[in-house]
């Protein structure tokens, strides 16, 4: 695709990841990585269940919801019955399949994705309120987490012309 020359290009994205399902976390990670790859500054703020993505014990074990997800289909495009999604092991199987499909596209596991984003200068923060709520300390979180901060602190990092805040 031809890129239009933007006269007033985007300079910074501040991405808030508040959910912990595979697709929510990866949407945030892809956007942050895509930004630094284009020379756009990226700052990420993980809150509520999004914290799973930067919690050492959980980050590589994310799941996708198989219940109440109308977009979910079986291989071949047949609708995925919600009742099936309730069976033990189904969610794990579907999650494993999603991870495999992403790996085939060279999309890395969460910990490696954070390595890539921070290698490009992206910054990772955790939400203080959510960390307190889930009783998480800095040592429970990825070494890439710069600090546990309040949303006010994060807004303070979100200033400047041509900055966008993205919520997923």
């Amino acid at each position, binding site marked *: 695709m*031809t*890129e239009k020359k933007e006269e007033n290009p985007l300079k910074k994205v501040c991405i808030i990841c508040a959910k912990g399902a595979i697709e929510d976390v990866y949407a945030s990670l*892809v956007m942050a*990585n*895509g930004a*630094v*790859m*284009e*020379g756009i500054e990226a700052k990420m703020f993980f809150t509520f269940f999004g914290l799973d993505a930067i919690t050492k014990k959980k980050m590589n074990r994310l799941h996708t919801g198989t219940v109440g997800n109308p977009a979910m289909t079986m291989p071949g495009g047949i609708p995925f019955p919600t009742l099936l999604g309730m069976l033990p092991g189904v969610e794990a199987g579907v999650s494993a399949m999603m991870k495999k499909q992403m790996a085939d*596209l*060279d*999309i*890395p596991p969460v910990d*490696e994705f954070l*390595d*890539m984003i921070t*290698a*490009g*200068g992206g910054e990772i923060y955790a939400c203080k309120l959510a960390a307190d709520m889930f009783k998480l300390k800095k040592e429970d979180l990825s070494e890439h987490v710069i600090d546990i901060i309040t949303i006010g602190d994060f807004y303070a990092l979100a200033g400047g012309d041509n900055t966008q805040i993205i919520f997923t």
Partner: protein
Amino acid sequence: MATKNIAGISVDVNDEGYMTNPSQWTEAIAKELAKEEDIELTDEHLKVAKYLREEHEKGTVLTIRKVGKSGLVDIKGLYKLFPGGPLKKSSKIAGIPKPTSCV
């Protein structure tokens, strides 16, 4: 499709300045293309460019992750070599099409 005179050679480029015929590429062209991106071309840059060209020829979809695992340079090093566009700028300098991957 346009042609552009780079380092004394007439090469085919698209409107974003990416070369459309990788076989026209030479190291002298790479040096000129690098200059346009404010990069002083070194052997390190050339190693990456040659790797990208080889992979492109094989039909590989290139990602910064793949380059990071090539053993030539890690991802941090790749950002240092090609600031503000590790895959785009390196591809441009390597004379291959603009990358289509999001990672």
